[in-house]
């Protein structure tokens, strides 16, 4: 049971959603945008989050769309992880979505909800960071497109009152060799000790992590080290661990020391798998 009341709104257009949110905000109702709702319901139930109104985005066409746009592909932020898995057009994204929570939860969690979540892992950000995705925000001035690395720095930098409508992907990334490895403490379905996702473009390996630090990230220095093919695999793995040492987190899933060990093994595995790097 959620121990407080709130109002529910399900707008039919992005403009209606933004104006409804602004009106509720002006009335002091502390509205929230609502995607799949699993995080909001969980947090509301235990009293760690409260709100006076929810604006459900699931009926907005831009949030539900899945469109081939020539060289690019658009995915609405309201698509569920399960939608992404069944689509499988971008295998790295589908694979990543398929390792978040369990299958039934994947039928509820949305792409936008995962990217904008409070939870630190936000694993769908990894393939989007690696493929230079563009994000479409809906706000008072309509829809605006931004580069992923501009508006996702540790977390989604959404101005209050705006929401993520969708993601545009460069289709040339869909067929690139990829790597995805999620290490958990114990069970297959758990938060990541480390999730590493890689994409090989030409002879260059791109890599992004979740679970390693308190936020998902892609790091230029790490990629420079990984692609220094004149160094041995072992040397490169050690240098990556050293490079990231300051941000590696320690929590109930694993100590920073253990994460460093797992990171090194993961890097070695990546270098073995992604031949030619």
């Amino acid at each position, binding site marked *: 049971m959620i121990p407080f009341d709130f109002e529910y*709104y*399900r707008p039919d257009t992005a403009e*209606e959603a933004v104006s409804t949110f602004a009106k509720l905000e002006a009335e002091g109702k502390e509205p929230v945008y609502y995607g799949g709702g699993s995080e909001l319901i*969980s947090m509301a139930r235990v009293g760690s989050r409260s709100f006076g109104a*929810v604006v459900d985005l699931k009926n907005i066409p831009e949030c539900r769309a899945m469109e081939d746009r020539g060289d690019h592909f658009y995915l609405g932020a309201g698509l569920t992880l399960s939608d992404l898995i069944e689509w499988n057009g971008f295998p790295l994204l589908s694979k990543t979505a398929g390792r978040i929570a*369990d299958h*039934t*939860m994947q*039928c*509820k969690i949305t792409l936008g909800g995962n990217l904008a979540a409070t939870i630190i892992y936000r694993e769908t950000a990894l393939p989007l960071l690696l493929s230079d995705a563009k994000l479409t925000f809906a706000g008072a001035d309509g829809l605006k497109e931004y580069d992923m690395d501009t508006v996702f720095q540790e977390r989604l930098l959404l101005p209050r009152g705006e929401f993520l409508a969708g993601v545009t992907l460069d289709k040339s990334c869909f067929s690139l060799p990829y790597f995805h490895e999620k290490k958990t403490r114990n069970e297959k379905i758990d938060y990541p000790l480390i999730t590493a996702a890689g994409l090989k473009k030409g002879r260059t390996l791109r890599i992004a992590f979740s679970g390693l630090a308190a936020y998902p990230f892609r790091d230029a220095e790490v990629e420079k080290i990984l692609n220094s093919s004149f160094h041995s695999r072992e040397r490169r793995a050690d240098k990556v661990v050293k490079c990231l040492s300051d941000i590696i987190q320690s929590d109930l899933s694993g100590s920073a020391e253990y994460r460093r060990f797992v990171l090194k093994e993961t890097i070695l595995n990546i270098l073995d798998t992604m031949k030619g790097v």
Partner: protein
Amino acid sequence: MYSLKEKSVIQLNINSEFKDVVISPSDILLETLRGQLGLTGAKPGCENGDCGACTVLVDGWPVKSCLMLTVEAIGKQITTVEGLKDAPIQKAFIEKFGFQCGYCTSGFLMVCHALATIHPNPPDILIDDWLQSNICRCTSYEEIGNAVRAVLSGEIS
């Protein structure tokens, strides 16, 4: 734009029947199914999306009803275990001994039924992925796997 600001009567499509229920916007689907409609097949377990005992089908897909607002179900086709009505998976659970205490059974039945409907010929890895959404503390996993495979192979229809 649809809105619900206070306790109101809404109509839901449950097991192919339209039912009127009185809900607040903050009501959870699991509570409405059990408390207002007497559909107690969906079980409250963890009530946090972890155990799967409350699983129902929403437009054919398995969803944990403890993490869905009732108001979200408007316009959707909701199926509970009461709506399966002697589906092959129910027979398979009996014949393959797919339960012990039975508390998790309705949730597992919904997941297995959805899998057999959406992916009639799934690879083993997909079966494992789908079944990992639910927990059986009596550990009947082997028998549950046998039951769903018996339906998928046509051994039980």
